């Protein structure tokens, strides 16, 4: 038998149900793997006692024939999801010692279905970043390396810990969140599958907020099937979140392997960037060919406001963040740094508690909302958002079933390589993903090939609102068409 940690989530689920393996042994295998992988810095907190207790309970339920959808499956949790009694930091100094007295809806859903928590995963501070380098606790190091190099690479961000842990087989799947690409970009960088569902599909209750109108949680997994299984558990209406949508959650697994024949796949011409590396263009063309080969029909479409999405995002997201992060004031929880008076206490606490990128975004957000600039920046950006949404509406009106694009403009880059001088350089990572958040649509990143340096590359599929099923069906086609990507050898262990 292969190593337990080589099983996919779907395989493990089946083996557990058939009692071929126990959750206890599976969990132990992961805990051992996590311990060996500490150099990757993927976990901010390992919760072995918690995990083993949960696993024992799972095995008892399996024995009683009461297995839930994810019974016994060990998962990693991005440290942006509040977990009751378990430290939750958002990778920020300001929340370094915060222990929530509550459980996020999404993690509660996972535990309801029998999942096991292995620990809390590293991320960019408050999910603000594309390389995991803004984490107060240091960057995550990708399990991937360029061919012939030992230079540490980024797993992407902000869900870098989630992507790295899944790729390095430190968990069967991980929760993640995506505000401008934070699920799909790290998934693409690590050869994993990441889906950002439609805005409103997953509850935001108990997830530390970055930008409320853009934030949406989803899973990162090794396969499309695993993502389908995990999203089904995470998703669902939550009356505690006013933006949550009251729609039934389908069994996403059912659509896998179904024919995509006759589906019309939009190929947006505006995504073909001049500065895009040639291999990204080739990957995209390859994806189009796979679609055609599966009987789908690629159709060129136009999304004319695409190029405005990223600048508009860098108004809307910081604006919301500046307000969402006002609650970190040293009064009720988190870090407090004394000052000469109450205002001094606020200013010292927030200067020391937030890292550089978070401070920068709060300042930009404060500026674009301030008197005299609100209309020129925020209102204008929200109008452009309407235009972006209309672009997609018009495409879908032309009977387009989904849209195929590259997931990222490049393969993973080295730690410290980008954004040191100019923050915009880092922001450009989200160029293909951010439009999807601006319009609230579902998007999935699927591994599709490797770069000239041997690093994973991904394609993105964008769907109609609440039509995650079509995305899973098409993603499965890419997954089965793409050459198998050989996982990195465990150089860290």
């Amino acid at each position, binding site marked *: 038998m292969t190593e337990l940690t080589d099983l996919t989530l779907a395989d493990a689920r089946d083996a557990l149900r058939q009692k071929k393996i126990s959750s206890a042994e599976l969990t132990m295998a992961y805990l051992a793997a996590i311990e060996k992988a500490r150099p990757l810095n993927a976990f901010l907190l390992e919760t072995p006692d918690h995990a083993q207790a949960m696993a024992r309970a799972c095995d008892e339920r399996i024995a009683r024939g009461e297995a839930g959808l994810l019974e016994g499956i060990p998962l990693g949790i991005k440290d942006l999801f509040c977990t009751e009694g378990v430290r939750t930091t958002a990778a920020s100094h300001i929340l370094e010692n915060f222990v929530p*007295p*509550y459980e996020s809806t999404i993690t509660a859903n996972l535990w309801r279905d029998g999942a096991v928590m292995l620990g809390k995963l590293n991320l960019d501070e408050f999910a603000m970043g594309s390389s995991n380098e803004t984490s107060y606790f240091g960057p995550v190091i990708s399990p991937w390396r360029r061919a012939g190099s030992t230079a540490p690479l980024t797993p992407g961000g902000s869900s870098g810990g989630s992507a790295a842990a899944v790729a390095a087989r430190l968990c069967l799947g991980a929760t993640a969140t995506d505000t401008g690409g934070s699920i799909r970009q790290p998934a693409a960088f690590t050869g994993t599958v990441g889906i950002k569902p439609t805005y409103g599909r997953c509850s935001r209750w108990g997830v530390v907020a970055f930008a409320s109108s853009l934030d949406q949680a989803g899973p990162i997994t090794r396969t499309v099937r695993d993502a389908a299984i995990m999203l089904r558990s995470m998703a669902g209406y939550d009356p505690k979140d006013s933006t949550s949508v009251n729609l039934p959650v389908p069994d996403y697994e059912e659509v896998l392997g179904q024919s995509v024949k006759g589906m019309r796949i939009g190929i947006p011409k505006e995504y073909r960037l001049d500065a895009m590396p040639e291999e990204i263009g080739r990957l995209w063309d390859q994806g189009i060919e796979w679609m055609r080969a599966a009987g789908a029909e690629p159709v060129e479409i136009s999304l004319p406001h695409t190029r405005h999405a990223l600048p508009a995002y860098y108004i809307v997201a910081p604006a919301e963040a500046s*307000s969402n992060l006002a609650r970190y004031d040293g009064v009720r929880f988190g870090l407090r740094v004394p000052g000469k008076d109450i205002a001094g206490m606020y200013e010292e606490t927030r200067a020391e508690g937030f890292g550089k990128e978070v401070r920068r975004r709060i300042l930009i957000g404060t500026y674009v909302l301030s008197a005299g600039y609100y209309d020129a920046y925020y209102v204008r950006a929200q109008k452009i958002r309407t235009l972006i949404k209309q672009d997609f509406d018009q495409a879908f009106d032309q009977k387009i079933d989904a849209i195929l694009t590259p997931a990222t403009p490049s393969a993973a880059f080295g730690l410290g390589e980008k954004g040191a001088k100019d923050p915009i350089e880092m922001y450009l990572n989200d160029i293909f993903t951010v439009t999807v958040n601006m319009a609230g649509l579902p998007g999935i990143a699927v591994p599709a090939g490797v770069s000239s340096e041997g690093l994973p590359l991904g394609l993105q599929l964008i769907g109609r609102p609440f039509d995650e099923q079509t995305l899973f069906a098409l993603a499965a086609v890419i997954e089965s068409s793409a050459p198998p990507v050989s996982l990195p050898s465990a150089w860290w262990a």
Partner: protein
Amino acid sequence: MNTHVKPSKLIKGATGDWEVIIGLEVHAQVTSRSKLFSGASTLFGAEPNTNVSLVDAAMPGMLPVINAECVAQAVRTGLGLQAQINLRSVFDRKNYFYPDLPQGYQISQYKSPIVGEGTVIVDVSPTEQIEVGIERLHLEQDAGKSLHDQSATDSFVDLNRSGVALMEIVSKPDMRSADEARAYVSKLRTILRYLGTCDGNMEQGSLRADVNVSVRRPGEPFGTRCEIKNVNSIRFIGQAIETEARRQIAILEDGGSIDQETRLFDPGKGETRSMRSKEEAHDYRYFPDPDLLPLEFDQAYVDELASALPELPDAKKSRFMKDYGLPAYDAGVLVADKETADYYEAAVNYGGTKRDPKLVANWVTGDVAAYANSVGLAVAQTHLTPAQIATLVDLISEQTISGKIAKDVLAILISEEKEGDPRAIVEARGLKQVTDTGAIEAAVDAIISANPDKVAQAQAKPTMLGWFVGQVMKQTGGKANPQAVNELLKAKLGI
């Protein structure tokens, strides 16, 4: 809007007359069981941080969900103010830092409030009525409470009030005197209490006002205004306006100018002072709250709430005037408090028979109200029942007792026999009016024969009659029918 300047409203300055312009922002706590965006209780006076949910404490990842009843209460209030109800409104975040503001922003409605323009009719005095325009009404969250007096170095923060629903009711600058402002707030409070949308309890902070005051020479454009924050009694609202108007007039007459600023009224010192420390860099950075959706409902929802509204003070006043023939003043006094109005009607109609409405009104607004006032209660809160008052009035109307004896009976009901039946009291204590002419005549004759000198005086000066009436009443223990005494005396004295 008042277009004419009423000379009686003007304030005399050293260099001439000034007109004071007043607008009010009243913060009224919405009557609801739970908070605007959380399921925590709104009950007053709980232990610190007890009526607080994770949402009210703004824990990371917590989200607001709107309370349907608070929306309905705002709509009811808008209807009661004869105002425009907006079928679509938007919640915005008002961003600022303060220890009792956990989110770092207040959820409020800035550009699109739930209620638009309306009108309140205000009785300033028995003879003067004005109309005050309502600019808007919006829903917002209350803040928590900071206690500053517990320690020399620290403030203590309690979030029990954090997130309680408030209605901010903004008037137009339509008031021209402290009296008008006081009368407006009283009327507004009456309307809210009728509607059941705010208990109007100013001691507990359920109703507070920010008062905007400016002054100008009659006929000139509006002057620069100052906002006096958080005035929490009707009396203080009046005092604050007078104090602030005089302060502004003094500055202007001295050749100075008014700075637009926020001020605080200090009732102890009788002055307003600048809150300039809070003034610095106010930039609230309003934007629509992305955790919420626009608040939308249809006209059918509004119509349903409208059809279930209770009778409001203005309508009740008209009805009292029409049905009971009351003068406007009496009707106005009675309807100012809904329970008093109900009490009055219960007394008038007690036992299924209607009694003299004016006489009942006199008792309710007179002796009963005076007693209630002396013990610090509202009329309906006293132990005196409408049945007792109705019986008392019946006894007078039947001429069983005189009005004077009725006052004695009331005194007995107040102090000795709280649950007593006035009729039984009159019976048991022999207070029945003497209408037997023989008995009265005997008393009259006795007084006349004992006071020949006074008889002569009275014949010369008929106003002396009163002295004889008094003597007869004394002799009969006050029980003689005063009309019979009068008639007999007049006949016997030949005047």
